[in-house]
């Protein structure tokens, strides 16, 4: 029960961060913020799936859930790479 409550708090925090980054994107039109927002939304979705679906999965299939998290991290890495590339070659 307590852990489910904490998981809900984590998901809420992820989605709140995603909304902040979305606001920064709307204000600045910087793609970095859009990708951060998308990544944090994905992390929130992963958290939700982790709470709802994970108990029904067996140990062999559990790692498929974590692919969502991996995609979110790769999005962040892609966003940073994209930002660095833009700074090195200003158009």
């Amino acid at each position: 029960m307590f852990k489910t409550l904490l998981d809900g708090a984590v998901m809420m925090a992820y989605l709140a961060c995603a909304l902040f980054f979305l606001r920064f994107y709307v204000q600045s039109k910087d793609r970095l913020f859009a990708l951060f927002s998308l990544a944090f939304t994905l992390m929130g979705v992963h958290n939700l799936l982790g709470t709802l679906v994970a108990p029904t999965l067996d140990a062999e299939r559990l790692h498929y859930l974590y692919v969502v998290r991996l995609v979110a991290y790769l999005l962040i890495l892609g966003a940073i790479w994209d930002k660095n590339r833009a700074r090195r070659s200003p158009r």
Partner: protein
Amino acid sequence: MAEAVYILCALTSAACAVLLLRAWRRTRMKLLLYSGLCFSAFTVNNVLLFVDLVLIPAGDLSLARTATSLTGAAVLLYGLIWDVS
């Protein structure tokens, strides 16, 4: 396959943390500091995930994992609300 996913999660989150903290050292932008600290907590979370599910499958570190996720997200949220907005 499962091990590879967990290790890749840990490596990518560590790479995010290092890149964000390096960018913060260069630019001193507060948002980068909070994002870097957030991903540092996520790295600890992913290391705990690997320990929990692969190294010690009999043990249960799920509460510690949730706590580290909450710490990371809370640090970033604090930064976004208090320092950046």
